[in-house]
C-alpha cells in the first residue's frame, strides 16, 4: 500500500513530505511509548503515534521508519516538523483514534511488525 492510499484510507492530512507520498508501506506499528518503538521497531515501519513532540520524529529516524501518522488529530511541534524535513520522513495526521486507525490499516492488509513474541 502506498502512503497516498493510506492517507486516503485514514482521511489524513499531510503535515510535511508531500513529495514522499508514493513510497510503499509494508508494515506498521502503533505506540505512544518511544522506548517500545525502539524495542519493537524495524526499518521500514509506518509509525502510528499519539506522541506529538519532536522525540516521535527522532525515534522514527533512529529506527529508519518510513513515515509517521499522528492519531486523534494530533500534530507534531515545530521542532518535529523541521527535523522531519531534514531527514526526509513524511508526517501525516488523522482524526481517527489509535485503535481505529490501526484497525483500518490492518483490515486493508497492512501487517504489524513481524517477530513479536506471539508469532514466535
Amino acid at each position: 500500500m502506498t502512503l497516498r492510499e493510506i492517507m486516503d484510507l485514514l482521511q489524513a492530512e499531510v503535515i510535511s513530505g508531500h513529495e514522499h507520498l508514493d513510497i510503499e508501506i509494508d508494515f506498521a506499528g502503533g505506540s505512544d511509548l518511544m522506548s517500545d518503538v525502539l524495542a519493537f521497531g524495524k526499518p521500514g515501519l509506518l509509525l502510528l503515534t499519539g506522541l506529538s513532540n519532536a522525540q516521535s520524529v527522532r525515534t522514527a529516524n533512529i529506527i529508519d521508519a518510513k513515515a509517521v501518522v499522528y492519531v486523534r488529530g494530533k500534530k507534531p511541534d515545530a521542532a518535529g516538523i523541521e527535523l522531519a524535513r531534514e531527514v526526509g520522513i513524511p508526517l501525516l495526521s488523522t482524526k481517527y483514534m489509535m485503535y481505529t486507525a490501526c484497525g483500518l490499516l490492518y483490515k486493508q492488509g497492512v501487517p504489524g511488525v513481524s517477530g513479536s513474541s506471539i508469532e514466535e
Partner: protein
Amino acid sequence: MCDEHVLSQEFEIKGGDFSNAGKASTSIKEILREIGIDSSIMVRVCIAAYESEMNVVMYARRATLTLSVSPKMLNLRLEDEGQGIADIPKAMQEGFSTATNEMREMGFGAGMGLPNIKKNADHLEISSTPGKGTSLDLTFFLNKDREK
C-alpha cells in the same frame, strides 16, 4: 581495545535538555551512513546511542559520548556525571524505572533503556559510582555475525 581508529568523534550531552535530546544520535546516524556502515548495524548502534543519550538527559548532569570506528568494530563510550546507578542489576531489568512524569510525557521512562541497549550491542560494560556518575562501554562488531 580497538584496532587503529578510522574515525573518532565526541558529543557533549546536557542533562535536562529535553529539546535537544537525541541530536547526538541523529548526528551519529548521519556519520555512519556517510562512511557506509551496514544499515542493520547502523540501526542497532543508533538505538543504543539514543537510549544512552535519553538516559543522560533524564538522569545525569552532563556526559561525553564518544564514537570510535575501526575496520573491525564500532565503539560507543559514554561517561556521565550525575547521580549514578545504585543497583545496576535492577536497572538492567525491563520495566524497572525511576522516571518522573515529565520523562514519561516524552515517551520514555518505561524501564526499557538499559535492557534495550544491551539487546542491541554485541558487548556491554557498565560501571557506576552513586553520586558521581556512570560509564557505559558498548561494542558492535562490523565484520562478522553477531556473537549472540
